């Protein structure tokens, strides 16, 4: 198994996780994914990459609040966490995690994803 698939598998093993993916922010490419992504996921991933790029333009390095770290998108039944992973070359990656909101505590889920994130690119 590849290093990436292994690391994403650990993220997917967290409680309430439906799918986890690595998305290239610059191109919107879903580099790797595990779990059961929704249909139309590549298009949604490209939108998320756009969103991250736009948010970074407003909240990026040099701004008082510092660089963008994470995006949380919440609906009645879903929690989407997108953690920014800086890379060079490139504009960074999104560690995207799709969770069932009814099964998770949002704060705890964010903390767990944050703890696993550094190992993904190591």
């Amino acid at each position, binding site marked *: 198994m590849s290093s990436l698939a292994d690391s994403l598998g650990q993220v997917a093993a967290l409680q309430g996780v439906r799918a986890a993916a690595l998305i290239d922010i610059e*191109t919107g490419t879903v580099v790797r994914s595990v779990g059961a992504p929704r249909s139309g996921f590549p298009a949604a991933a490209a939108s998320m990459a756009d969103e991250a790029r736009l948010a970074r333009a407003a909240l990026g390095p040099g701004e008082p609040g510092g660089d963008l770290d994470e995006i949380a998108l919440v609906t009645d039944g879903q929690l989407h966490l997108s953690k920014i992973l800086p890379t060079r070359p490139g504009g960074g990656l999104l560690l995207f995690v799709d969770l069932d909101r009814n099964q998770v505590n949002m704060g705890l889920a964010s903390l767990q994803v944050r703890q696993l994130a550094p190992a993904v690119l190591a």
Partner: protein
Amino acid sequence: MNIVISEDDLVGPLREALLVAAVAGMSGALRVTGDPGGTIHLADGRVVGIDTPGAPGPEVLLLRSHRVSEPDWDTAFAAAAATGGPLGAELVKRGLIGSGELEVLLWTTVADAMFVLASGSVDEYRAEPGPVEFVLPLDPGAEADWLLAETARRLRVLESLPARPDRDRVVAVSGAERSGDRLAGGQSEILALADGRRTPRDLAFALGRGVYGTLLQLARMHEAGLLVTASYRAGFQFGARKTAHPAAGGKPVPADGLPRRSKDPAALARRVVPLGRTRDLPATLGLLRPRARRDADAGETP
């Protein structure tokens, strides 16, 4: 009559070649003749790397972006060559790049090169089964399905862009660097190099970035009024590959009148899996390429 371009047509003839190679579990090289042309390296039917003059490979991306310094690269290169071990493992072992980060880089590099090959013209392709000869292979390689779907997505995105500076030499608008708007990541580097002599491909090589990512960035900068086209140049246009259109009777005819490969699936299968075939190119070990040659490969378009 409306002509509907299907996903198959979007990626072009390489789609069929890759799918047949995947089903056959082919290992070796798929030599693509055309503009820009290149070589698709396969292991067990998966794409482990692509060489093409149209897109920077992993070595160029790592060195030009200064992610890995040249002395570090050379030392790791020499150590891998001496032991016969994989260069990727050597880079990771020396702490020059993370294992996951390298894997991401190799995935995105393969996707970028495939996009460039599919955007250009394909005159012919030839399968050469044999050992994998690629300096930094993706392991395990990219599945043909994933690669084709991603290539089609990129071509669709490119077609939808209002500004497409795909083959033009671009130049920074006077004062763009000092404009009141804050420049997004990577835009100031492009402005510094956009001197009217470089094409998007040249910029990608110079900056150590993917061609597709560079094209998207250039399109945004055009739209924001930061860049203008300096001159048009000869060459293929990304996403505007000549496509065989259906003629009366339903049979495809070449768009340019040039000879085309046979579409007979049986003939294709025979061509892709020629058991016992003798390779007509020397099995040059890429690892032994001298430094100067590797640099020369990444030169600018004249």
